[in-house]
C-alpha cells in the first residue's frame, strides 16, 4: 500500500468515524457550522419533533427517600388533601423546573443542531439548551430553574447531564432537592414515533439511591408548540403562609 492510498484510507476512515465521536471536533462552538457538521447529524436517530407526554405525572412513591424527605413529602400530601395548596411557586406562575416540567400534560419539542440540542417545553414556555459541542459542565453554575446541561451521544442515545438547580424547584411535587442534585437523561427512539427519556436522579440529601424513572412521549406530527404565558390571566394567588386568594370577578 503506497502512502497516497494509506492517506486516502485514513481520510475515509476519519469521515466514517467522525459521526461516532461525541462532539464537534473543534470543541465548544455555536457556529458558523460547516456542511460536515450538519451531515454528521444525519448519522444520528432523529429525535427532533414535537412530543406529547403519554406517561403519567411523576410520582415520588418510587423514589428511595431519606427519612426527612419522606416526612416532608407526607406533610405536603396531607396538607394538599386537606385543601391547602402546596405547590405555591407554580401556582404563582413560577416554573417548577425539570423533571416536573417535562412530565406535564403539555408537549416538548426537540431541535437538533450542530453542537446543541434545544428543548422547548410548552409548559410555562421554558427552553433548555443542552450543549453537545464538547464543553464540560461548569463546576459551580448559577442556579436556574432548569439547570445547566451538556450532552453527548452514546450509540443511539443522547445522554444529557444537568446540574445547578434553584432551591425552589422540585424533582417531583413535594420532593425537593439540595445543591447536589444531578439529573442524567437518556433520550432514545424506541421507534420513529416513540421517544423514551429515562431520568437518573441523584441527590444524597433527599435520595438514598438514584431514582430512575422513565417518561414515554409520542411523536405529534401535526402539532405545534403553543404559547403558555402563565401570568396572562392567573386568578390564583397563593401566599407562603398558606393563604389562598382567588379573583372571581
Amino acid at each position: 500500500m503506497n502512502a497516497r492510498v494509506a492517506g486516502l484510507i485514513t481520510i475515509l476512515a476519519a469521515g466514517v468515524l467522525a459521526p461516532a465521536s461525541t462532539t464537534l471536533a473543534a470543541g465548544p462552538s455555536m457556529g458558523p457550522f460547516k456542511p460536515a457538521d450538519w451531515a454528521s447529524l444525519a448519522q444520528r436517530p432523529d429525535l427532533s419533533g414535537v412530543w406529547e407526554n403519554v406517561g403519567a405525572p411523576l410520582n415520588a412513591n418510587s423514589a428511595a427517600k431519606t427519612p426527612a424527605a419522606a416526612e416532608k413529602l407526607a406533610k405536603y400530601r396531607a396538607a394538599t388533601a386537606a385543601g391547602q395548596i402546596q405547590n405555591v411557586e407554580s401556582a404563582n406562575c413560577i416554573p417548577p423546573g425539570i423533571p416536573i416540567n417535562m412530565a406535564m400534560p403539555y408537549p416538548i419539542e426537540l431541535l437538533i443542531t450542530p453542537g446543541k440540542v434545544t428543548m422547548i417545553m410548552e409548559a410555562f414556555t421554558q427552553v433548555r439548551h443542552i450543549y453537545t459541542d464538547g464543553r464540560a459542565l461548569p463546576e459551580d453554575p448559577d442556579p436556574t430553574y432548569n439547570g445547566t446541561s451538556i450532552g453527548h451521544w452514546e450509540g443511539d442515545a443522547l445522554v444529557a447531564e444537568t446540574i445547578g438547580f434553584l432551591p425552589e424547584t422540585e424533582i417531583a411535587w413535594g420532593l425537593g432537592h439540595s445543591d447536589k442534585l444531578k439529573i442524567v437523561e437518556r433520550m432514545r427512539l424506541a421507534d420513529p414515533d416513540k421517544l423514551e427519556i429515562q431520568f437518573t436522579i441523584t441527590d444524597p440529601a433527599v435520595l438514598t439511591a438514584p431514582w430512575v424513572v422513565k417518561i414515554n412521549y409520542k411523536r405529534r406530527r401535526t402539532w405545534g408548540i403553543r404559547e403558555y404565558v402563565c401570568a396572562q390571566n392567573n386568578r390564583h394567588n397563593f401566599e407562603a403562609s398558606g393563604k389562598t386568594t382567588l379573583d372571581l370577578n
Partner: protein
Amino acid sequence: MLSLARTIAIGAGVAVLWTTSVSAHHSYAMFDATKDVTLTGTVKVFEWTNPHVWIRIEVAGANGALEVWGVEGQSPNFLSRRGWSGKTFKAGDKVSIVIHPLKDGAKGGQFVSAVLPNGETKLMTGPSLP
C-alpha cells in the same frame, strides 16, 4: 356527566388520560371533587387564556336574584387539543355547566362538563386529538 367522561376515557385505550386532578399550574385542592353543582344560565364572559380558561356565568340564585359564578377550566393549550376553541362559549349563550364547587363557599368552581346551546356536551378531559 361523570359516567360519560368515564365511558370516553375507557374507550380511549392506550392514550394518556389526564384527569381533572392534573394541572401544570396548581393542585385542585381548593375544589370539592366529591360534589357536583349544576349552573344553568347565561354566559357573560369566556376568557380563553392561560393558565386557565374562565367562564363567568349568570344564574338565578336561591332568592331569584341573579348572581355571577366563575368557572375555571384547563388551559387553551390543553383544551385546544381536545376539541375546544376560543369560540366554544360566547357571551349570551344559554348553557348548563356542571362544576366541582369551591370548598370555601365562594361562587366559583372547577369545570366538569357543559351542555352547549346546540345540545352538544363538552368535557374537559379525555384523549388528545391527532
